[in-house]
């Protein structure tokens, strides 16, 4: 009993319960932001699996998001298929893309992986920009309808909200399960010490391939939801900034901490919107955003488990310490 209901799980359940009742308390604008939060949650959790558990810093996670978004958008545009069919193909195609990106990992390690992911994202974006017959290039795909499941089309944003919430729930449970599974333990061993892990008989490459594929699939699902939410996709949306936002959410929430990712997504999605109400910040909203990033990293690089107090205490102690040291000299 105790094993299951640790603090993180309780926080997770509180968040989910809060989200479940949210539509009754919010107006459409707030609901929209919450939907963005949900998409960011799925997106960031998929990256957290790769970064926090797999130990790979990816600068190009937006690539999978865009592949997911474009897969469902193109299938709708060219064949008029509904989401129940598109979903399977989203999983298939983003999974394959993840697999493709994992292939060079047999040789490449460490920081170079980061660079490969960055280049991969750039190339995916260039393909989307220039493959006119399929993706319509820069023109974007217009008028994507709300999600349709087996002929039933969602009528309201609230239905969409709950649909996405189910995905958040599934993603979280699955990620948790993965972390505790053999794969997760292998990955953590590899992350902490790859040589020792190899010596223990863990084969690095197959594990990496699996984690890249799973991570890509969930990022792709988030992307496919995005396409139906926005009703419009264009290549410019899926730029490097999207990847950076995602990394920020993961790191602010804490590496390897999926509950933290949920809180990080809520925090970093709502923050820019909240800052909008301050007129003096009109043009400098994003400066405040950058400042928050730096300060959070500074204090204790994560909000959950909020060791803010300790962070401040340590900071002042250090200041005093330095003063004392100077006086002695």
């Amino acid at each position, binding site marked *: 009993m105790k094993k299951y209901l640790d603090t993180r799980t309780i926080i997770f359940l509180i968040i989910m319960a809060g989200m479940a009742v949210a*539509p009754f308390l919010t107006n*459409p604008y707030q609901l929209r932001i919450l939907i963005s939060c949900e998409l960011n949650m799925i997106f960031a959790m998929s990256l957290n699996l790769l970064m926090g558990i797999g130990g790979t810093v990816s600068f190009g996670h937006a690539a999978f998001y865009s592949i997911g978004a474009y897969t469902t958008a193109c299938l709708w545009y060219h064949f008029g298929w509904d989401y129940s069919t598109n979903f399977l193909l989203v999983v298939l195609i983003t999974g394959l893309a993840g697999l493709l990106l994992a292939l060079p990992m047999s040789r490449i390690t460490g920081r170079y992986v980061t660079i490969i992911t960055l280049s991969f994202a750039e190339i995916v974006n260039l393909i989307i920009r220039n493959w006119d017959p399929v993706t319509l290039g*820069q*023109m974007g795909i217009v008028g994507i309808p709300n999600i349709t499941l087996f002929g039933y089309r969602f009528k309201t944003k609230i239905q969409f909200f709950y649909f996405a919430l189910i995905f958040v729930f599934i993603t979280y*449970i699955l990620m948790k399960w993965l972390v505790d599974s053999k794969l997760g333990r292998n990955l953590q061993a590899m992350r902490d010490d790859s040589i020792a892990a190899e010596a223990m008989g863990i084969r690095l490459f197959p594990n990496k391939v699996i984690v890249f594929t799973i991570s890509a699939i969930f990022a792709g699902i988030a992307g496919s939801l995005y396409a139906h939410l926005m009703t419009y996709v264009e290549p410019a949306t899926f730029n490097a900034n999207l990847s950076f936002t995602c990394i920020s959410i993961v790191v602010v929430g804490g590496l390897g901490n999926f509950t933290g990712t949920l809180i990080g997504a809520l925090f970093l999605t709502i923050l820019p919107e909240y800052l909008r109400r301050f007129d003096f910040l*009109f043009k400098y909203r994003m400066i405040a955003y950058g400042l928050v990033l730096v300060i959070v990293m500074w204090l204790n690089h994560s909000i959950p488990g909020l060791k803010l107090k300790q962070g401040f205490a340590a900071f002042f102690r250090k200041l005093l310490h330095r003063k004392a040291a100077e006086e002695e000299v």
Partner: protein
Amino acid sequence: MKKLLSLLLVLLMVLTIAGCAKSEQGGGEEAAETAADANGDYHIAVSLPFTGTNASYAEYIQMGLEIGLKKLENEGWINGDGTGKLILDYYDDKNDATEGATIAEKVVASEDPYYLLEIGSFASGVSYPCATIYRDAEVPQYALTCSKSDFLPTSGDWGFSLSVTQDTAAARVAAYDIEYLGKKNIALIYSSDSWGLETCKYYTETAEKLGVTLLASEKYEDGQQDFQSILTKIKETNPELVMCFCAENDIVLIRQQAETIGLECDWQVSSKSRTSNVLQNLGDLGEGLYGIYARTKDLNDPVYIEYEDLYKELYADKFKEDNNTTQKYADQGYNCMLTVIWAIKNGGVTRQSFRDQLATLNEFPGVQGSITFGPGRRVLQTQYLSQIVKKDGELKWVNYEDILDTFDVDAVAGLK
């Protein structure tokens, strides 16, 4: 325990899904007699990219809107007695589709202030996702600069635009270049955004109709700074004229780098690029540059004189900085404001009546000539050729207003 909790949660979700269809219909049903607030003031939301690479366009549009407001204020606001103010709320969408859609939801959901209409966004890519939101909520969306041809159909009955579509604009430019200027060897440079792609397509089509095959047709990605390689390529084809469908910043870079590698020919720039900024930065290189511009400006036109006076009064520094001219996007912002005021004054005090009223706009005296909303609320305007020439040692844009008398551009372009 955990299983129980999650089961409960799923149950809760299912219940709410079932219940939610009802709750959605609750809001926005009471059709008020007027959109004005308790003081009799009208609120308008403006969503433009105030940060990012398109910020200068947004600032000019804002200037135009503010000048329009000033004019109204001088006239004693809507009712003429100091009541019925218009209050603009500006939002920054960063030229980002996701941001734009969020703002649209905010505008739609806002009860206090209650927005009569929304103005913006700047780019078609941002206006699209917003259009469906405004359409569903039945809020008029005045996307004044959105020129993409399928924007208006997307927005149902609720979208308006002040820009001519590219099929018209680009065809006219091609007709000018080939028949009026008499150029047969033409190379094309265009930006690979939706605007650039559309212009390129229609320009090429019209050119082929007129029997001219383009020597080269070069596309570049947004954010490109170094154009020397494609210019070198174009130089090899020896063009008489290089046509640029590019953002104004890129025009400056392209023209300067063409000088660096020694590409000598005539230059024609798109309607997006006719700003004093180009003039200022190019210096003597700008001489001889042609530009196509939607404007029937007669300098003695009373509408224009009033506008220019207010412009000088409110933005004297900017006016001087821009070589004593008004700027295209400010003109459009002003036109937008004038038409909004006109519609409100003529009974457009609710969202529905405002839309109906604005759609009937016909031969409205704007600052770029008269404005008419044709079928599908698309604006009809004529375009004129202008050129940079040296006058008294200073570079100036000179408009060729008389061309239309001798040269029927629409007939040549096959638009009639």
